[in-house]
């Protein structure tokens, strides 16, 4: 509540502030600065880690509203749909990518997926994407990579904007954002509302995407108290409501849910000298859901559930320029996480502490080396040490080589440790590993257990899933103006957590728990090109080649122990190693071509984006755990998206029309996230104020 009052007060003061123009120098940043790769500001062209930056302008020219729309068009990223909309990176599923908001982790994952549709991108400054593990700085979940959504802008331009957009499926959004810079700081706030009527693909019995409505409010205040002391305070609140239904044997069941998410962050930065700076960050986040399923005929309960997660993290970080060639970054932090939910016995709490250290060494002009590591100690699973070495070498002025080796990990989640679920209707039981021994004993005493397959008291403690990952690439300029980026990657992930039957109940149904079993690997290459054509045109393209395998299964294929039905003879035969396609949901080939026309003087920007992904395994129909039959694959497809915008009245008014998926490609059986052709029109009014005169 306080925050709203504060926000209101600040908006009221905007008029007064408007009068004060900023006098401190706006040192125009000629080169892009990134923060995610090193946890401090570095020039994108120098940092020894490949970072993809998506700017606000790019997001706007696409006409994107939700984060997944932006990510879907990036080379090597795929949008997945499993308990929410997630992103696959370097062939690793959504649970292995850490999502940060201004450097702080967003919580509230369902079965590992952070639902990207929770993030409205109307007020972001930029998105930084790092592929490859960054657990060396961020700890758990940063195994495939990190996506950092940055809302803080250091622009000196004050602007207030209101906008709206309307499109197919009755999707409409309303936004209001303001940024008020003043002499010693800035204040920014925004609200946005998103409504979708959802859609039903094919003749499904329940909506493919149910109608939902979301509200987001966020604000940020930055202030320089003195040249040495700087603080920032930011907060975000998100709420979603959805309304769905499905058919049960006893009639139609309505499914109404609410999801709430808030986070607050407070930072104090102290810069006593040119060579030293330290920052204290306090971060709090809360995520809660409520779901009610009731029979429509008599309003009786089908299922009611709730989930409440809290996350508190104090952290201290210091950046110390020891020597012109050595910059040391170190930090220490503590995380307290708690959870209350249906299907969990008590309120569960996790505590973990961590330290990280990173040395940025520039031994000679051409070299830039980053050596770092993070140690996480945890009260529920074994401690993790995640080292990483990245380096870059400038061959000449135009080209540089980048390489990295690092370890990433993903901690076991609450469910895998603490779930206590008895499926009353069917009769099976699922137990988190921390409870399994005690609950099983209890069940044995009650005579519910017929046979124990794996004694949970004997098995090793559940460990984190972890990887070693290798990246090698080259970046540079070919010909006159062609920018080229190439990267080869290899990820070896072990200790993947899967369910196993630990015991059989007297009703002949299973008691499941979790164990570390599988290991997988993904490898491939990524190429990106960017070519300006004349003053106004730009063409860019990207391609990813990806191979993936389940190591145990691949060994079986090699030994001739995995079988397939020969398409020609109809007989069963051993699957050849060349026929092993890899993990499900991985396309071998994917690519994009984007053509943009930007004419600043005319205020016109328009673009066309072509996105392709080749076939990928969807399901296993014949029990051999690998996609091999034609019907087990999703056929490859191409979509084309268009957007065009025109600015008027000295860029105060911006009108945009978008047409996504113009050829109306759908595949209701396999791709729930693709509703077909989507039109939208949008309008934004920008009111510029407090222009910095320097």
């Amino acid at each position, binding site marked *: 509540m306080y925050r709203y009052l504060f926000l209101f007060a600040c908006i009221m003061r905007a008029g007064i502030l408007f009068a004060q123009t900023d006098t401190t120098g706006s040192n125009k940043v000629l080169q892009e600065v990134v923060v995610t790769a090193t946890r401090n500001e570095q020039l994108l062209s120098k940092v020894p880690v490949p970072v993809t930056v998506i700017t606000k302008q790019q997001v706007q020219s696409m006409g994107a509203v939700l984060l997944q729309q932006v990510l879907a068009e990036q080379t090597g990223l795929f949008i997945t749909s499993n308990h929410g909309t997630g992103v696959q990176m370097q062939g690793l599923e959504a649970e292995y990518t850490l999502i940060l908001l201004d450097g702080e982790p967003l919580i509230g994952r369902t079965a590992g997926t952070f639902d990207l549709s929770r993030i409205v991108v109307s007020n972001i400054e930029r998105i930084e994407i790092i592929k490859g593990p960054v657990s060396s700085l961020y700890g758990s979940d940063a195994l495939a990579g990190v996506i950092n959504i940055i809302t803080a802008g250091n622009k000196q331009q004050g602007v207030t904007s209101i906008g709206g957009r309307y499109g197919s499926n009755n999707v409409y959004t309303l936004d209001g954002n303001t940024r008020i810079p003043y002499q010693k700081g800035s204040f920014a706030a925004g609200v946005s509302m998103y409504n979708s009527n959802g859609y039903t693909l094919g003749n499904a019995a329940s909506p493919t995407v149910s109608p939902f409505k979301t509200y987001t409010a966020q604000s940020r205040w930055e202030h320089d108290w003195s040249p040495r002391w700087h603080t920032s305070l930011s907060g975000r609140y998100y709420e979603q409501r959805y309304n769905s239904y499905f058919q049960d044997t006893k009639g139609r069941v309505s499914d109404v849910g609410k999801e709430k998410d808030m986070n607050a962050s407070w930072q104090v930065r102290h810069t006593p000298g040119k060579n030293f700076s330290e920052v204290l960050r306090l971060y709090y986040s809360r995520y809660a859901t409520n779901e009610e399923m009731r029979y429509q005929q008599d309003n009786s309960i089908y299922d009611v559930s709730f989930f409440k997660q809290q996350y508190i993290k104090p952290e201290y970080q210091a950046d110390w320029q020891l020597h012109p060639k050595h910059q040391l970054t170190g930090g220490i932090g503590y995380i307290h996480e708690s959870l209350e939910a249906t299907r969990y016995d008590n309120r569960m709490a996790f505590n973990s502490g961590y330290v990280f250290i990173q040395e940025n060494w520039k031994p000679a002009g051409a070299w830039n080396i980053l050596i770092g590591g993070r140690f996480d100690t945890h009260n529920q699973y074994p401690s993790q040490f995640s080292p990483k070495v990245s380096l870059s070498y400038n061959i000449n002025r135009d080209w540089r080589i980048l390489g990295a080796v690092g370890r990433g990990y993903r901690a076991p989640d609450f469910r895998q440790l603490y779930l206590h679920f008895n499926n009353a209707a069917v009769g099976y039981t699922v137990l988190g590993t921390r409870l399994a021994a005690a609950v099983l004993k209890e069940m044995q005493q009650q005579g519910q257990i017929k046979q124990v397959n794996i004694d949970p008291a004997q098995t090793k403690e559940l460990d984190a899933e972890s990887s070693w990952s290798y990246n090698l690439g080259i970046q540079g300029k070919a010909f006159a103006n062609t920018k080229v980026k190439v990267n080869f990657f290899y990820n070896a992930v072990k200790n993947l957590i899967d369910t196993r039957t630990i015991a059989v109940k007297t009703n002949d149904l299973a008691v499941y728990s979790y164990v570390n079993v599988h290991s997988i690997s993904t490898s491939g290459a990524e190429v990106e090109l960017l070519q300006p054509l004349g003053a106004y045109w730009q063409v860019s393209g990207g391609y990813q080649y990806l191979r993936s395998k389940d190591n145990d299964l691949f060994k079986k294929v090699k030994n001739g122990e995995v*079988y397939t039905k020969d398409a020609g003879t109809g*007989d*069963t035969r051993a699957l050849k190693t060349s026929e092993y396609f890899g993990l499900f949901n991985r396309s071998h080939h994917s690519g994009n071509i984007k053509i943009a026309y930007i004419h600043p003087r005319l205020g016109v920007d328009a673009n066309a984006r072509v996105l392709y992904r080749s076939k990928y395994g969807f399901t296993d*129909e*014949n*029990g051999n755990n690998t996609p091999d039959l034609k019907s087990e694959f999703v056929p490859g497809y191409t979509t084309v998206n268009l957007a065009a915008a025109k600015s008027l009245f000295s860029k105060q008014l911006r009108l945009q029309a978008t047409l996504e998926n113009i050829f109306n490609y759908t595949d209701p059986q396999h791709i729930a996230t693709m509703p077909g052709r989507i039109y939208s029109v949008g309008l934004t009014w920008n009111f510029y104020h407090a222009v910095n005169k320097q």
Partner: protein
Amino acid sequence: MKIQFQTAGILMLSLVSLFSCSKNDDKVTPAPSVSPESKVVANLDADAGNKGSFTLYSLADNKVVPNSDSATTKWDIGFKATTIIINGGSSGPGKGEAQVVSGLYSTLLVAPESGYTTDAAAKKAITGWYSYNMTTHVISPVTGAVIVLKTANGNYAKLEVTSYYKDAPATPDANSLSRYYRFQYVYQADGSRNFK
């Protein structure tokens, strides 16, 4: 693409008819020393009408046994939808036991010595032979799942289900008629574990 599938289907059909022809000619000498041959049973109605009864089959005689003989050892194996029973344990008076092994039907030349179980009311000996697709609701035999069983009179047989749909379409869909088994089997009458 679709055309290719149809031809594949026609091929399959003609194969079925080919095999069913050969089957009728084979009732000559059951000489124990001669290696047993693989037989194909097609479109075996496994309670397609949903009457709740098993279709009982004699592997020894290669024919359907009437349900009135269910309490005898005349039958070896029975089918009702996806449930397969054997003549033993809770299902019948015979010596039936079975297991599902992973391997190739054609190269499984000796039956495993151990690992067999018999039917219990709650758990049948033959499980895990098929896979169910939750989106298309199609039942597909697990590739490489070979059923090895002891028949009602204790002889060994191996069996592979190749389709659960009428006329064994290459890619069954929601319109395919289910509960029609197509399977191939080898029955060893001499009591040995050899299928060679």
